[in-house]
């Protein structure tokens, strides 16, 4: 009995601290958040398109550098079916607005001050981006934003766009 108790306790401790990161091949978790205008943006409604979901915050330096690049990507690949949804995780909306004034976004920006979306998506670093293919499956998880990774990520976007939805 005592041993069973200890075992249970051990399992409980391990289970409470362990978390399993999302990776390529996993189904994208649900995402339903409002934009600044109050318009609801739902990932499921974008099924059939390739969606680049980016979690960012105003206090995150690399995020600021990623915005011009994401604008570029959208301009280049929108016609082929790319959508970019940037999820802001700031507690205060003013912080995000100040950031957006300095780094304007051509793509969709939604807000989650509660932190439930990054928790569901198991965000491990800021920024973290997820490339979702036309079937709603994660194709790539990119932690951080590094200049030397830009080419690789763009290649992946192009490949996923070319693959299209599952027949």
């Amino acid at each position, binding site marked *: 009995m005592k041993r069973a108790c200890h075992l249970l306790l051990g399992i409980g401790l391990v289970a409470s601290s362990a978390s399993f990161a999302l990776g390529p091949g996993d189904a994208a978790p649900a995402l339903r958040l409002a934009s600044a205008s109050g318009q609801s943006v739902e990932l499921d409604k974008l099924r059939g398109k390739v969606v680049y979901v980016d979690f960012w915050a105003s206090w995150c330096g690399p995020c600021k550098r990623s915005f011009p690049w994401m604008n570029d990507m959208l301009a280049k690949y929108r016609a082929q079916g790319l959508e970019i949804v940037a999820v802001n995780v700031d507690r205060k909306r003013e912080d995000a607005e100040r950031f957006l004034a300095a780094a304007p976004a051509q793509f969709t920006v939604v807000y989650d001050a509660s932190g439930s979306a990054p928790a569901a998506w198991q*965000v491990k670093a800021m920024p*973290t981006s997820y490339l979702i293919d036309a079937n709603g499956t994660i194709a790539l998880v990119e932690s951080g934003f590094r200049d030397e990774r830009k080419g690789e990520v763009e290649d992946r976007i192009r490949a996923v766009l070319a693959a299209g939805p599952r027949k």
Partner: protein
Amino acid sequence: MKAAFAFVLACALSGCAAYAPPQAWEKQYLAKPAMQFDYDKLDAKNVQHIYFSKEGAAGGYGIGGGGCGCN
């Protein structure tokens, strides 16, 4: 007695587990420049200078010089 000890130990251990480090999206205040150890470069340099002068040892912080307190 042994069981009680195990229980207390388990409580203590799981108590520590309750203090999870902040998640990546919760680091707004930790990301502020003021939260860095060497936020004030001049002050950091002074502190290091006094430290290595007093300790009679130098190095490890990128400031050259010996332990004489003269540099």
